[in-house]
Each structure stands twice: as structure tokens, then as C-alpha cells.
């Protein structure tokens, strides 16, 4: 059935894969009717999909550097778009974002705008030029463009800080999902998640990660969209929710007015399990100041353009032209999920709030709610909680608590969908978190193995040795990430936002000016990266330890401080030191036109 080269057969291969996955869902649905327990369905979904990814990872094993670092530069536009979308949409996007919107409304929707708008910057400012450069990693670009090991090493430092912050959040997310789906303790589930991540990336590097990410995208997008459409149809809200939920949005505003927002006292909140919240912000009203919204969006956009695990996906396309188009496809595939997240939040809220729906619980008696099956399940998993603060026996809006991730994980069950959908959602969340973790772990270990080990420490190393070092580092970084994830220092969404701020602080201007400002030189870039990262981090620590901050910049938007310092110091230091030599200027000229040879050779 499959003849010829793998690349030429991609649509067929992934078409078969998607068909196979749909058949698997149907088999599970039949098994559920035949009496298979919910727990078994969850285990089947997660382990079946993870085994497929591991198989793809094993089939893509390689012993060549360009396959290991950039997938041989032959990933077609649309498939690279899918892989980037999976790389991009993390556990935070899949599991936590709808929850954030559910609880915080407008203020959190800045993330939707920021995490999509950033791609315009990627497409226009960076991706095509870095592709033309022909680098293996982002520090490879910095090191060659500016010259010198110090610039290269500074870039590795920023990359590691940002990506490591991010990866702990992703391993945390895989652990959370694996522990719920497989019913094992979180501390063990984290390492189960890690093992699955390493299986996908260790043998084949970027090549293996690319083809597993495409497979993971297909699973995660089916898992996200199917429940949204199904619930919308189930409650009669419309067959195409994205265009038809206006009445529900208005109805929620009406119900919010009716129930009223009551602020819980500190004493009441003390009894609520950690990490759970009640609805306290209106669903669709503009409830944040323009600056709060815009500053968060700006940080996410600049961070998007500076995060190395996204940028390196565009090193894998066959040409500059395809790199540019591939950014458009990436954003299209991301858009499919992001535009659905607010719809899911709306459907979840209306299902729980509207007393005329059979699923509505607000306004019912507390005892009645406590007797519901799904409430008991999710309460046991510490994701839901009710308490009769005012003692009137009825559940009020401020007396129902839920964890953000429950909006995605529990809504299908709340809305009365069969359990097979919940199993599917768990598999989707696992795919989202794994694909991002893979990209991140690979970005860090590639930077350390290629830029630090090969370019700085041992430039004479042979290919075989380089790839062994790369794999050893991959495993070590994975373990370090899992160990920190098990400590649960910061929530998933919080750590992800920090990662964007770190990346933006240190890398945004050195990358952009490397292409767009010929006068930028090595001392300037080093100053920009290090002073940016240091000042951003210092601001974060100051605000975290009780500092008041300035200009309304919070611990979620500290990248604005870092990036501003980075820009100023880079420009000032560049101008007071010597201009880059003629060879470097010529290099920048060459990067600016798509035709001709890449700056760095195919194998380097």
C-alpha cells in the first residue's frame, strides 16, 4: 500500500493513522456499552496513544546530525504547521486555558490574542531569515551572526532558563493527566510521563519529534473539538458553537446578575482545597484595564517570537519560502483549538449555572449536588469542592469550587457525554503536554550538545560521539525537569507565562536586531541578553518578595522590564563599540535574500 519515499506518502500515512484512531474511539465506545469500566477506558486511551508515539519515535531513529538536529530539512509546509501547532499548544493550552477563561474572563483572553499574534512577528521578523541562515539551534544563529563563544554561551543560558521553566510545567501536566487517567500517585506519574517523552525523542531527535508531533496534533485536535461540538448540540446551543453561542453568552451574563458575585471571606476560603476557585469575574464583560490586557498580550507575543523550541521548527522546512508559509499553517492549526477554548468555557459555565438545564447545579440543594456521581469522582480527585458558607442549604455561585483544569477534563462528564469522551480528552491532554515537553527538552539538549559541547568544548568530536552526548544530555535534562516538576512550585499556567517573559527578556531583541540592524555587534548582543535576563529576573524576584512594582507591571509581565533593558543596553553598547567587520555585514546581506546557499553548511 505504501510505496516510495516516506515524505511523499505523508498524507496517506497520516490519513490511515487518523482513520485508525477514529476506529479505536468507536471500538472504545462499543466496549463502554458492553460494560467496560471508566477506569479501563482511560487506561486504554492513554497507553494506546503513548505506545503509538513511542513506535513512531523508534521508527524515526537516526545516526545523522542533520536528521537529528533539523529532521533532514525536508518537512513539508502543512505537516510542519501541524507539528509546530502540537509543539506550541502545551498542556497549558489544552488543559488550563479554557479554565483560565472560565474563571477570569476577559483578562485571561489576552493570552489568546498574545499566543496567536506572536506568530505574525515570527513570520515577518525572524523565521524565514533564520531558515536561510541554516543553523541547527537558536544559539547557533547568535553565535555565528555575532561571533564569539561568549555570545553563543549567553544565548544558551537564556534558552535554558526559559525552556527549563516551561518544561517543568509540561512534565507537571503529563504527570497530572497520567495520574488521573492511570490512577497512580502524582509522584510516580511524573516519571511515567517523562519515560513517554523520552521514548519519542531520544533515538531520532528532531526527526522523531517531528513525526510524533504530527501524530499528537491529530489526537489533541480531535480530543478538543469533538466534545465542544457534541456538548453544544446536546444542550441545543447550536450545531456550530463558534458562530452560535451568542445567546448562551448573554444568558450567562443574565444569570450572573441574578446569582450575584459574593466575595468569600478568608476564613471560608481556608477550608477550600488548594488551587480551586469559584467564579468571581463576569464571563463576557471587559473586566481588565486596557494596560493589564495589552501588557500581558505584548509579553506573550514577544515571548512567542523568542522561544527557541518554536523557532527551531522552522529550521526543518525545505526552503525559506516554505518556512514562511509554514508559519501561516501553524497559526491556522493553533487557531482551530484557540478559537474553541472560549466556546468550551461558555458551554461548561452554562451547563453548570443554568437551572433550566438538567446539568445545572447552582441554586440546587447542597445535599443534592453532593450526591451526584461526577461530583463525587472529581471531588475525590481534588478538582471540585462545595461548601455551604452561608448555611442556607442551597448552592450559591461562590460556594462551588473547581480547579481550572477541570473545565476541560470534567465538562464532558458533567454535560452527560459517555465516558469514552473523557478518555479521549485525557489522551488529548497527554498528547499536548508530551509534544511540547519533547520540543523543549530537545531544544535545551541540542543547545547544550551542539553549541556548548561541539562548538565550544570539543570542536573535533565525531558525529557518533556528538549524538551520544546529545542523548545523554536529553535524558539528564528530562530527569532534572521531572524532579522539579514533582515539587510543584508554581501552577502550570503560571510557569508557562514566566517562560515567555524569560525568553522575551533575553532573546527577543538580540534575535530581531541580528537580522534587521547590521550595526548590532557581539558586545551589544551579549549585553542585551545578559542584562535583559538579569533585570527581568531581578524584577520578578522583587515583585514575588512583596515589592510593589512599577507601571502596573506584574510578575506575569516582567518581560517588559527585561526586554526594555535588553533593547537599550544592546543599542548603547553596540554604538560605543566597533562596527561588525565586513564579513559579518556580508553575512547579514546574504541572510536577507532567500536565494543562494545557506550561511552554515548542510552538515556542520
Amino acid at each position, binding site marked *: 500500500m505504501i510505496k516510495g519515499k516516506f515524505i511523499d506518502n505523508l498524507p496517506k500515512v497520516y490519513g490511515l493513522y487518523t482513520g485508525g484512531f477514529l476506529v479505536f474511539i468507536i471500538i472504545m465506545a462499543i466496549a463502554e456499552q458492553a460494560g467496560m469500566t471508566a477506569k479501563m477506558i482511560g487506561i486504554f486511551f492513554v497507553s494506546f496513544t503513548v505506545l503509538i508515539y513511542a513506535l513512531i519515535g523508534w521508527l524515526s531513529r537516526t545516526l545523522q546530525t542533520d536528521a537529528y538536529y533539523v529532521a533532514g*530539512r525536508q518537512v513539508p509546509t502543512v505537516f510542519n504547521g501541524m507539528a509546530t501547532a502540537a509543539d506550541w499548544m502545551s498542556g497549558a493550552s489544552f488543559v488550563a486555558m479554557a479554565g483560565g477563561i472560565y474563571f477570569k474572563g*476577559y483578562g485571561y*483572553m*489576552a493570552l*489568546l*490574542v*498574545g499566543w*496567536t*499574534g506572536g*506568530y*505574525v*512577528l515570527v*513570520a*515577518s*521578523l525572524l523565521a*524565514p531569515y533564520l531558515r536561510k541562515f*541554516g543553523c541547527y539551534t537558536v544559539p547557533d544563529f547568535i553565535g555565528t551572526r555575532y561571533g564569539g563563544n561568549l555570545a553563543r554561551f549567553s544565548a544558551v543560558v537564556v534558552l535554558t532558563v526559559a525552556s527549563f521553566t516551561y518544561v517543568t510545567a509540561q512534565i507537571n501536566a503529563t504527570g497530572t493527566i497520567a495520574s488521573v487517567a492511570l490512577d497512580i500517585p502524582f509522584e510516580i506519574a511524573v516519571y511515567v510521563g517523562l519515560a513517554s517523552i523520552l521514548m519519542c525523542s531520544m533515538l531520532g531527535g528532531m526527526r522523531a519529534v517531528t513525526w510524533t508531533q504530527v501524530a499528537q496534533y491529530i489526537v489533541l485536535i480531535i480530543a478538543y473539538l469533538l466534545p465542544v461540538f457534541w456538548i453544544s448540540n446536546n444542550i441545543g446551543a447550536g450545531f456550530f458553537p*463558534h*458562530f*452560535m*453561542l*451568542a*445567546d448562551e*453568552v*448573554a444568558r450567562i451574563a443574565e444569570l450572573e446578575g441574578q446569582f450575584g458575585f459574593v466575595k468569600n471571606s478568608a476564613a471560608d476560603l481556608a477550608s477550600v482545597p488548594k488551587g480551586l476557585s469559584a467564579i468571581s469575574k463576569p464571563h*463576557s*464583560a*471587559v473586566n*481588565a484595564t*486596557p494596560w493589564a*490586557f*495589552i501588557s500581558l*498580550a*505584548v509579553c506573550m*507575543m514577544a515571548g512567542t517570537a523568542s522561544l527557541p523550541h518554536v523557532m527551531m521548527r522552522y529550521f526543518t522546512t*525545505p*526552503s*525559506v*519560502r516554505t518556512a*514562511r*508559509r509554514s*508559519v*501561516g499553517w501553524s*497559526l*491556522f492549526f493553533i*487557531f482551530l483549538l*484557540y*478559537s474553541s477554548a*472560549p*466556546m468550551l468555557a461558555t458551554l461548561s459555565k452554562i451547563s453548570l449555572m443554568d437551572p433550566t438545564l438538567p446539568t445545572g447545579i447552582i441554586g440546587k440543594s447542597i445535599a443534592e449536588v453532593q450526591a451526584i456521581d461526577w461530583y463525587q469522582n472529581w471531588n475525590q480527585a481534588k478538582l471540585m469542592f462545595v461548601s455551604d458558607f452561608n448555611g442556607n442549604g442551597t448552592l450559591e455561585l461562590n460556594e462551588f469550587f473547581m480547579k481550572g483544569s477541570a473545565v476541560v477534563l470534567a465538562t464532558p462528564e458533567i454535560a452527560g457525554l459517555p465516558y469514552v469522551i473523557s478518555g479521549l480528552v485525557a489522551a488529548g491532554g497527554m498528547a499536548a503536554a508530551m509534544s511540547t515537553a519533547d520540543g523543549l527538552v530537545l531544544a535545551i539538549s541540542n543547545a547544550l550538545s551542539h553549541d556548548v559541547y561541539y562548538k565550544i568544548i570539543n570542536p573535533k568530536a565525531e558525529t557518533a560521539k556528538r549524538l551520544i552526548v546529545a542523548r545523554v544530555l536529553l535524558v539528564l535534562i528530562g530527569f532534572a525537569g521531572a524532579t522539579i516538576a514533582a515539587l510543584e512550585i508554581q501552577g502550570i499556567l503560571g510557569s508557562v507565562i514566566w517562560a515567555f517573559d524569560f525568553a522575551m527578556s533575553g532573546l527577543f531583541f538580540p534575535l530581531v536586531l541580528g537580522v534587521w540592524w547590521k550595526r548590532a555587534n557581539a558586545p551589544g548582543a551579549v549585553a542585551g541578553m545578559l542584562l535583559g535576563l538579569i533585570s527581568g529576573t531581578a524584577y520578578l524576584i522583587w515583585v514575588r518578595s512583596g515589592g510593589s512594582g512599577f507601571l502596573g507591571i506584574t510578575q506575569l509581565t516582567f518581560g517588559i522590564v527585561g526586554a526594555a533593558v535588553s533593547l537599550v543596553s544592546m543599542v548603547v553598547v553596540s554604538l560605543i563599540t566597533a562596527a561588525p567587520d565586513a564579513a559579518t555585514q556580508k553575512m547579514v*546581506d546574504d541572510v*536577507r*535574500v*532567500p*536565494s*543562494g*546557499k*545557506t550561511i552554515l553548511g*548542510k552538515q556542520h
Partner: protein
Amino acid sequence: MSKQEQHWEKTRNLLFITLAIWFVFSIGIFLFGAEMQESSIRPFGYPLTYWFTCQGSLAIFVILIFWFAGRQEKIDDEFGFTEREGDQ
């Protein structure tokens, strides 16, 4: 002006146009979030600001990138800087 300088000037102008559109829909309109929300323009019945954050701005970004890519390809073609087989 050399061919390469002309190419870069056109590329830079395209960048400025792209970034201007990007700025309007990622930052500009949200300066007036509260005012827009009250507007009588309601796409698909949603309040205007709410719609932009859910779908509007996001969809505009997708279209903007494809438009930008097409224009840039035209500029590259015009100056003969499009990649050829074997370039890489």
C-alpha cells in the same frame, strides 16, 4: 541603488505594513475594549470586544500571515531572489 538594496527596501516596507495591521488588531483595538463592548456592531451576536478576543483578532492574524507570505514571494520573484533547486 543596487538590486539588493531595492529588494530590501521593498521587504522593509512590507514589514512595516504587516506590523501596522498586527498592531491594530493585537494592541490598538484593546485600548478601547470597554467602548467597543458597548457598540451595536455584534458579529454573530457576540459583544464586539469579546468576539475579537475569541475569534476576530485570531482569524485576522492567520489571514495576515498568508497575505504577507504571498507579497514577500512576489517581491523575491521580482528581483530574481527566489530560491532555486539545489540552493540549499
